[in-house]
Each structure stands twice: as structure tokens, then as C-alpha cells.
């Protein structure tokens, strides 16, 4: 019995109200809000969040593979999954790959993972989907898009949602696209896409799946499927003969937005959060065709606990005060050139210290027991030499020991909050605080770790680091 063993999700803390978008462009654009990744977040960092949420309280060394789906990878040439793997501290001897180029990527990854487990080439495989697409200013997409991620652990033991079957449909339908040189998603007439693609493909795949399993729409407890807006989502449900009041999982379009590849997986996480043993959950992705999956929930669902998932992440938010702040964190403008030269990244350092940088491993002295970061040869407390045990610090919480707020640092979002943190259980970590309300920072405040872009290859504000995404761990007030 192959299926979902665990799930997790991530929604960035910032929201932009559609009212603020309408106010910017002087037009009515509807209600609700979009989840907006902070300036130091991208599909990789959000993917790490979802994966870590999914593996909460679990042994990370049991993961045999990571399939990462996104249409907004940081690099066109360079794997994203390998970065997620390193930050999530999964084993190195596992299969990782990216599934890109289609909004349907999460479905493809889900099928491939289930097949790997079914075939016995892996015991447990992670499927993660993450999206941070940049919509063109003053476009329909700008009103719709949101950022977020979801992750599932697939396996054949302790299964919480058994995969009963899937159906796959591939179609050469050109609705949205982005060439390598395009910043924004391109599209064509929405009525054409609605009639010929959205209204047909998911219903067709779902009908095919139900027929294959000898089931009817009435057998579906909750349906988690893709659509670009709430009205269309309702219409697709109707086409599938589902009762919109009872059988359709809220698609997050009003309060999170269309998170592309990650949308249907995030809706599935939301459905699993409320699922009861015996429920049948439909999961359908869309893009260049459609994939439909049916899961049957087991008793094991009650053992998945303490996930931030969708519910808690959605409830934990900070509103961007206006469109201008959105422009700033998404870097939609060209800024004044920095006066200082940028420093380069040392790739040998990044490689040599990968365990320390990505996995956030510190060390604990075997003589005096003190935890220290970064890596040392001589203990900074008792001067014992080369006598340490490695210790992962990325899952530690801590308290702010002291902080400062630099208004003039080379950083997109100012002030840059430098933070010294005493970790619960020992050790001190010096970092930058992100996702913070600067009026609410205090000595003693509880914080946690979050994997972020420390310096990125900003187009308009050349931050440091050789035009690379330099990822590292920051701290944030304990989120939720």
C-alpha cells in the first residue's frame, strides 16, 4: 500500500490585500489577499520550509529521494532539489531531481515517487512543490498569484492516505508560458483557455480515474484541485458533478492566491488537515494536461501532529502596508546603484563548509559540553582540540540576547536586524532577523531558524555574492 505518510506546507508571512493592488492601479480588483514571499525567500527556501514541516518530529535519514516541483527555480541551469536536500539535512546518497516547466509538475513528481516506492527502489520519497512567480504589474495575474509550498512524504508503511489510483492526461494546449528571457508569465485569451482547457481537462482526467476505479463523484469526500480563481474553481467542481458545499476543499485562492505548481498540493494539505479515516480525497493538478489521484485516508492520519501546514501558516500573517512595500520586496523597480563594490562569493568556502552552511551543523565539545558555531578546531570555551560531536542547529529555537537595526546596510528590506541569539539547549547564533515587526523586537524574544537568501543576484541592486543565490539561515520571531 503506497501513499502519503506525512505532509507539510508553507505560506510566507506577508500578505498583500487586493484592495492595495486596486488602489495602486485605480481599479476594482475584488477582495481577499495574496501571500507574498519576503525579499529573502524564493521557491527553494519555501520548499525547505514545507519539507521541514512535513518531516517534523521524524527521522530525516529515512528519506530516500526528493522530487522538487517548481516553475520558478532560482537557477535555469543548476538543480534546486539539491539545495533543498542540503538545507533539510537529508542524506547525500538519495535521488534528487527537479520537475519544472509545467504547472502540473507536482502531479508528475507524485506519480514518480509513488512508482519508486511501489517498485521498491526507495522506501520513502519526498515530493515538494513550491512557487514564487512574479506577475506583471497591473495584470490579471497580479491579482491572482500567491507564493507558497507544500510537501508530502510517500512510503508504504505508516501510510495516512493510501493512493488508490491515478489518471494522467497530456495535452498540447498553450495557455501560459514563459521563455527563458521572460520575466513575467505570458498568456492568451482567458475565455478560450476557460472553455477548452480548465473546464475540460481536470474533469476529463477525474472522470477517467473514477471509471478506472469503478467509483462515482459521490464517492469523493473532498476534492483538492487547481484553478486560477474562485469562480472558475466552482465551475470546474460543477463540471465534475461535485457538491460545492460539501465535496470541494477551499482552494486558498482568496487568502493565499494562485501558487501555480504548489496550489493543488497546498489544497491537498488543507484537505488532509481535516480528513478523517475512510475519507476519499481527490487530488488533481493542471497544466499541459491534467493528473488526477485518489487517496483513501487511514487511521494513521491522526498520528500526523504539530504540522504548521496550511491552517496555522494562513492564520499567521503580516499585511504589507501598501503596494510600494510589495514593489520593494519583489524588486519591481530599478534602484539607485550601490556606491560600494560588491564582494564575491568564495565557492571553495561554500563547498568546504556545506554541512555548516546548508545543514547548519555546529559542534558540541566533548570535554566541556558547550555548543559552538561556526566550526572550530580548538574549543572556544575550554580550548580542547578536535574533540567535538556535530550537532544540527537548524531545528533549535532560541532567545534574543541582543539586537540592532541597521538602516544603512546593503539589503533590500531595511533596517537589517542583526540579532544575537542564545539557543535553547546551548550555543549562540549570530544572524539577521527576518519576517519581523521592528516595533516588536525585544531582548529575550523567542526566535527560530529559517533558511533564506542571505545575498542574492538582484538585477537592480547588485548585492554581494558573485551573482549567485547565497543561501544561509536567518532567525525569525517564532512564527506560529
Amino acid at each position: 500500500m503506497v501513499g502519503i505518510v506525512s505532509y507539510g506546507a508553507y505560506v510566507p508571512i506577508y500578505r498583500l490585500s487586493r484592495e492595495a493592488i486596486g488602489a495602486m492601479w485605480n481599479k476594482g480588483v475584488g477582495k481577499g489577499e495574496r501571500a507574498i514571499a519576503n525579499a529573502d525567500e524564493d521557491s527553494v527556501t519555501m520548499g525547505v520550509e514545507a519539507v521541514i514541516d512535513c518531516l517534523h518530529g521524524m527521522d530525516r535519514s529515512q528519506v530516500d529521494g526528493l522530487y522538487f516541483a517548481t516553475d520558478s527555480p532560482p537557477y535555469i541551469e543548476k538543480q534546486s532539489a539539491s539545495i533543498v536536500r542540503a538545507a533539510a539535512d537529508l542524506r547525500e546518497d538519495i535521488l534528487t531531481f527537479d520537475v519544472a516547466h509545467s504547472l502540473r509538475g507536482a502531479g508528475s513528481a507524485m506519480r514518480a515517487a509513488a512508482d519508486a516506492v511501489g517498485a521498491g527502489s526507495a522506501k520513502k520519497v519526498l515530493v515538494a512543490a513550491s512557487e514564487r512567480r512574479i506577475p506583471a504589474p497591473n495584470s490579471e495575474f497580479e491579482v491572482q498569484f500567491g507564493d507558497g509550498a507544500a510537501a508530502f512524504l510517500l512510503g508504504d508503511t505508516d501510510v495516512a492516505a493510501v493512493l488508490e489510483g491515478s489518471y494522467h492526461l497530456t495535452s498540447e494546449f498553450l495557455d501560459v508560458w514563459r521563455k527563458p528571457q521572460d520575466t513575467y508569465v505570458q498568456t492568451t485569451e482567458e475565455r478560450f483557455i476557460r472553455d477548452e482547457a480548465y473546464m475540460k481537462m481536470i474533469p476529463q482526467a477525474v472522470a477517467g480515474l473514477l471509471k478506472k476505479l469503478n467509483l462515482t463523484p459521490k464517492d469523493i469526500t473532498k476534492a483538492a484541485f487547481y484553478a486560477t480563481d474562485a469562480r472558475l474553481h466552482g465551475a470546474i467542481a460543477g463540471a465534475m458533478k461535485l457538491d460545492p458545499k460539501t465535496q470541494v476543499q477551499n482552494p486558498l485562492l482568496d487568502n493565499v492566491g494562485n501558487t501555480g505548481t504548489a496550489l493543488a498540493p497546498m489544497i491537498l494539505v488543507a484537505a488532509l488537515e481535516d480528513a478523517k479515516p475512510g475519507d476519499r480525497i481527490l487530488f488533481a493538478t493542471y497544466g499541459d494536461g491534467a493528473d488526477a489521484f485518489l487517496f483513501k485516508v487511514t487511521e494513521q492520519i491522526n498520528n500526523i501532529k504539530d504540522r504548521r501546514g496550511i491552517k496555522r501558516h494562513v492564520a499567521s500573517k503580516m499585511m504589507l502596508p501598501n503596494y510600494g512595500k510589495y514593489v520593494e520586496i519583489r524588486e519591481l523597480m530599478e534602484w539607485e546603484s550601490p556606491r560600494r563594490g560588491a564582494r564575491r562569493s568564495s565557492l571553495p568556502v561554500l563547498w568546504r563548509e556545506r554541512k555548516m552552511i546548508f545543514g547548519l551543523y555546529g559542534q558540541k565539545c566533548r570535554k566541556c559540553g558547550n555548543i559552538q558555531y561556526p566550526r572550530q578546531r580548538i574549543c572556544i570555551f575550554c580550548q580542547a582540540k578536535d574533540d567535538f560531536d556535530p550537532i544540527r542547529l537548524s531545528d533549535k529555537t532560541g532567545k534574543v540576547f541582543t539586537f540592532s537595526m541597521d538602516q544603512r546596510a546593503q539589503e533590500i528590506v531595511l533596517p537589517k536586524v542583526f540579532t544575537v541569539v542564545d539557543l535553547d539547549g546551548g550555543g549562540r547564533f549570530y544572524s539577521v532577523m527576518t519576517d519581523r515587526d521592528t516595533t516588536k523586537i525585544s531582548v529575550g524574544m523567542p526566535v527560530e531558524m529559517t533558511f533564506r537568501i542571505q545575498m542574492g543576484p538582484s538585477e537592480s541592486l547588485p548585492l554581494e555574492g558573485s551573482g549567485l543565490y547565497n543561501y544561509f539561515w536567518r532567525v525569525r520571531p517564532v512564527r506560529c
Partner: protein
Amino acid sequence: MESLKDKVAIVGMGCTPFGEFWDKDIIDLIVEAADEAFADANVTAKDVQAAWVGYTVQDNAMTGIILSSALQLQFIPVTRVENACGTGAETIRGAALGLASKTYDLVLALGFEKMKDAGFGGIGQAWPGKWHPVYGAAPEVGGAVGRYALAATKYFSTYGLSPEDGKRMLAKVSVKSHYNGSRNPKAMLRNRITVEQVMNAPIIAWPLGLFDCCGICDGASAAIMCRTEDAKRYRPKGDYITVKASAIACGPGWGKERVNYGYTVWEETEAAAKQAYAMAGITNPRKELSMAEVHDCFSIAEVIACESMGLCEKGHARDDIESGAWEQTGEMPVNVSGGLKAFGHPAGASGGREVYEFYKQFQGKADDQTRQLKDLKMGLSHNQGGHPGNFVAGITIVGEPPSR
């Protein structure tokens, strides 16, 4: 281990005005400081047997050649030293050791920094071309203030000061330094300021605002040194000073990563002071020192430095600031020159500039007589480079020559 106390003397000094000199090059700064020192000691460049030159990061200078080429020294040893903001103290220390070993008889110690050719405000890059994730997290670029501000936040919370009270305490430090600097013709900032101005100034790195920060500028300082027994060849007794102590303390670093680092004591400065007091035979610095020129790159730096060097009891800086103990007429005059606050901080030049303040005060030659102190016995010059938890501290104590 022998003490350096009174073994070497300073018989001539020079110091350029400190400021933003768009029309001066490094060689101009070097020549100006050296000329004043040579004339003061009544020697020429030809008399100098060896030299030490201190500067930190300069795109337009390297090695000791910058000094020998600027002054056209002819094939003598020139040692370039660098210990961040402790460079000035290190320059004098190198020269003193060269004399004490009797390898040389007359030497030049010169520190300079040309910071305003960079094309931006603030401090230049300490390690250009390198990115390290841990330091990548830090305000290496232009962010000394962010690091020192960590200490201000912690000082306030440790001693129960509200941010408002804490900022007010620090404001008084800056007001005092500007007042002193306003009467010092060589200072960069000669305007007087009020506590309210400091309180209302733009924040640079909270809780520190504009007037909590010293300026960045250009400058050079120079000393002509010999062994004390030769000093009378150059100046009458009572007109030269001797080195009582020269100390450098490099910390083991990683303070900000160490849970037992409190951010309210400069450990390196405390250690350097301990070395220096032992060398100079000082047991009660507040009583025995006539004045102290303290590294006040930021207002909080002066506060914690005074406490770390025992000029003030730990946690009691506020009492001294309120009572005026650190003012010119107070019990322990601190930064009578105006300090880094009024002078700005051309890193390599500051240490020598602080010794120059004592030298001139001792000779009764404070440029503005309203700033002149009386009955000077010993003065302390302090600098520290790096950032809280990761400093190199340099202390030079100079004073009245021994009576015999």
C-alpha cells in the same frame, strides 16, 4: 619579562588636521605629519634609522614603501603594521621595541589613513573579494555601527535603562566630545551640539543615531622616538615624554558566538589595560592618569571602554556622565581632544593623534588654551579594532620622564 616603562622617549610629534581632504593625497598627509614631527625634534629624514608605518586597508598603498617613497627615505628598514583600529598603538609599539632592543637609536612611527577617496560614506571593506556565510550575515560592509549597536542594546537591558534613558546617557557623551572638539583647531567636527539634537537625529543603527557615530576622514600622525637616555639631545627635559606602557591584546574572537560573552565589557580592552597598567606600575588608573583618550568610534564605545579600563566602575558610567567626571574639569578627563567623535577616525592615524594630544598638553601647548589641562603626569591612549567579541585593543601610556 622586562617592562618598557621609561625606556623610550617621544621627542618630536606631528599631526595633520583631520578632515575630508579632497585635495590631498596619501603622500601629502604623510609629508605634512612627518614635517611637523621632524621640525619639532629638530631632525631630518636622513637622521631616521628605521621607521614603522601603520595603515589598515588602502587601495593606493602597500607595504612600507608608501612611507619611504613619500618621504624619500633611502633604503632604510620600514615596517608596515596593521592591527585594524589598534594600528596606531601598534606602530608606536613597533618603534618602541626597535629602540628598546638597541637595534636603532632614532626612529619614526607614522600612522595614516586616506578614507575619503573611496567614493562612499562609512568604513571601507575590510576583506574585499571574500564572502563567508557567517560574516556574510554581518554588516562587514559599512556596518561597524550595527555591531556596536548590539552592545548598546545589551548595555541598556543589562543595567535596566530604558532605550530613552540609555540614549540620553549616550547623548551626553557626544555633547561633551563635540564641546571639546569645538575648541580644537585640528578636529574635523567643530560644532557644538545639544542633547536634544542627538536624541532627535536620524537613526543609523538602532539604538545609535547620527551623533552617536564618529566621522570618517583623512589624517596622519607621526612621532620621532629615541631611547630616553638620548632624549636630551633633541629637547630640554620637561619638554619630551616617555612611553610608560605599550600594550596590544588580540582577543580569541568568536565572542559574539560565545554564550558567556556579555556585550557590556570590552574584554580585549580590559586585557590590554591590565598589561599596560602592570607595565606602567599603575594601580589606580582613575587617580594616576591625568587624562585618557579613549576609542569612541561610537558613544557606547567610550562608555564601555572607560568601564573596561577601570576608569569607571562597571555599570556606573551613567553616574560619571551625569556628574561630569569625564569632562575637562572632571575627576577623569576623557577625550579632551574631542575624541574620535570630533576628529573622525582615519584608522591608522588615530592612535598617534591621541598620544599627540597628551604630548601637547604636557608641553602646555594645547592649541586653544581653554582646553589646557594642568599638572599632567600620565595619559592613556586607547584604540580597538574589530567588533564586539572580536577586538584587537591597543593602549599606549605616556607621561612625564623619570626624575633621575
